């Protein structure tokens, strides 16, 4: 990981994420949503409007490229890998409202999923291939996986991986319609868990095959990954399939489960989602399980961006030699058999497993290490 940039409700930059996670901060705000009243939401709080959408992505990419200290020609050769669930739905909502109110079209809406990647390419002079992955909440995990694959195949010299999700009402009401929004607070793996609190944010990683000047996360190395499908669960996978994707990632990383130092769970906080992941972990670990944590009570569920945001934040904490606790977890659920950390735990070097699952049976697991 040669460079990074991140903005979430916890602030801009890695230090802000690590400090807030160390304190187990979990302070969602609220957003008004028409006739439905207001909803809990983890907002970045950098203003609204169309300009904000592009400015946020631009700033985070700027941070990542500056951190990697790349020349203009090195930037030009990068490939772009974006993971997002709603893409630019926020902009479409603004445009729809404008037209509904009788205004002339502000711009031609092309409905092109690759628009954000094209914007980044034009803004920063990047001329490599562009891939936008839309596999729901695993989108940016798949972006990371294929960036690493293209690097290993020497198809590109460097990759810019972006996970981005912007507030939009359609997603919020969509989760409402599926009765997946928490009425209390997010409590992953807790017996009283009742759903998610959504969030927004943008993260960017510069991935390269070579060590560089020491930007980014100098002790973070992508070791292996798996991406698989559960064709029987459109909104929630089976425990067997979640266990299978974790096992496959470990196989690709060529390590055994007992060598994992800690696990960053998807930890989505829904009754079914956590049961599936927890039972999947129990299938992988019949005995002692490494420490488990979930970041979603702090950052919110950032949908397609969650893999990049949570990976950056998690590796930042590992660099500071601790695994953060999971805010809100108090009562273990006997049906799961998985208890996330209640307090921060010190760690040294090791291997780390990071899970991300999405609608459409899309399951991913990533393995990072602190050694090359």
């Amino acid at each position: 990981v040669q460079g990074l940039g991140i903005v979430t409700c916890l602030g801009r930059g890695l230090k802000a994420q690590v400090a807030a996670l160390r304190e187990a901060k979990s302070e969602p705000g609220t957003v008004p949503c028409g006739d439905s009243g207001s909803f809990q939401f983890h907002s970045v709080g950098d203003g609204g409007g169309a300009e904000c959408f592009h400015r946020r992505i631009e700033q985070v990419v700027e941070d990542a490229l500056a951190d990697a200290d790349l020349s203009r020609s090195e930037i030009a050769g990068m490939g772009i890998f974006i993971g997002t669930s709603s893409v630019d739905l926020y902009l479409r909502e603004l445009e729809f409202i404008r037209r509904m109110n009788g205004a002339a079209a502000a711009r031609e809406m092309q409905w092109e999923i690759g628009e954000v990647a094209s914007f980044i390419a034009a803004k920063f002079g990047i001329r490599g291939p562009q891939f936008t992955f839309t596999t729901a909440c695993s989108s940016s995990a798949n972006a990371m996986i294929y960036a690493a694959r293209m690097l290993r195949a020497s198809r590109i010299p460097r990759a810019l991986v972006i996970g981005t999700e912007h507030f939009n009402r359609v997603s919020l009401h969509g989760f409402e319609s599926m009765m997946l929004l928490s009425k209390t607070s997010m409590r992953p793996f807790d017996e009283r868990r009742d759903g998610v609190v959504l969030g927004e944010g943008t993260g960017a990683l510069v991935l390269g095959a070579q060590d560089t000047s020491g930007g980014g996360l100098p002790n973070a190395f992508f070791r292996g990954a798996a991406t698989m499908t559960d064709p029987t669960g459109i909104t929630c996978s089976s425990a067997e399939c979640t266990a299978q994707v974790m096992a496959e990632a470990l196989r690709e990383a060529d390590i055994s489960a007992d060598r994992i130092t800690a696990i960053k769970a998807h930890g989505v906080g829904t009754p079914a989602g956590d049961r599936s992941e927890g039972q999947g972990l129990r299938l992988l670990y019949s005995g002692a399980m490494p420490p488990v944590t979930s970041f979603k009570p702090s950052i919110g569920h950032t949908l397609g961006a969650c893999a990049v945001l949570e990976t950056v934040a998690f590796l930042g904490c590992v660099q500071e030699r601790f695994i953060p606790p999971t805010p809100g977890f108090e009562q273990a659920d006997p049906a799961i058999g998985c208890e996330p950390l209640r307090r921060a735990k010190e760690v040294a070097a090791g291997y780390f497993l990071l899970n991300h699952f999405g609608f459409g049976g899309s399951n991913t697991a990533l393995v990072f290490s602190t050694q090359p």
Partner: protein
Amino acid sequence: MTMPLKVASVAVFLQHFHGQPPDYAAALSAVCKNVPRRLTRFIQLNLIGAHQCVNRARGPLTRDCGVYLGSAKGNTEDAINLLRQVFQVREIPNPVTFINSSTNVASYYLAQTLKLHGRNLAIASSDFSFEAALELACLDVGDAAVPMGLVGAVDQSSDQRWVDSSAPADRGAPGALDLSVWLLIDPACPNPLAEIQWIRRANGLEEAQPWIDPAGERNLPGYLALGRGVLPGEKRLLGERCSSGWSTYSYAEDIPDVEVLAAYGIGRFILAGNPGRLLHIAGNGRGSFYGVCLTVPRSADDALPA
């Protein structure tokens, strides 16, 4: 990645229509035994093309076959319906419409109906969405990360009125097109319809021009297809490199423009079954190009009706 890669089967499903978009339920039932309920048009389009492709393949799919759906726009129809539900009708959206609006749900239903557990990706890359999906599939199959890959290019025509649904529909106006093209890449196929020789990307015409060997192909007739996004001046310069060893392959004169048109041209070329080497070059009008080179062998006895 290891090349060439064998193409075991191809299907091209194209619907050019006027007025209301057609109902695909009957077409889907004809190719898929157990059609899931509550599918919308984009998902139906995916399933029709993919099942046609799989049905034509001579061997069974393996459980770990990867699915690579390239779509520039995704499920626009359901996305517009969601906007209408939330902002015009001011009601909570239908949860099925919400779920279906995610592009990868179309490839999920494909995995469900074909019982696939492997990689399942929805990929977009604006003008090169098909080529991007094909590149990742070739990467995975070529490295044996998956045993075979089902690669699709699907885009639908959608109602662009957005807000005022009482206005005359421009959906179905001249030029409306639904397209679903699928290729099955199977390295173990004994009698492939075609072999993908390489897939490359170029920044600038000077990088793309060397793709064309002026001498043509020694053993097979050479065909050059210049797809969408190649500007007239670029077409002229690329054409100048072609000697008598090359013929021009045109395929898009009579159908509307869609981002994934390259898949249509490549699919039709393979299905025609004429032995030859096809070099397909598409551009984005801003100096970037994708080239796909494939051969249809003389021994192919598997030509299917287009």
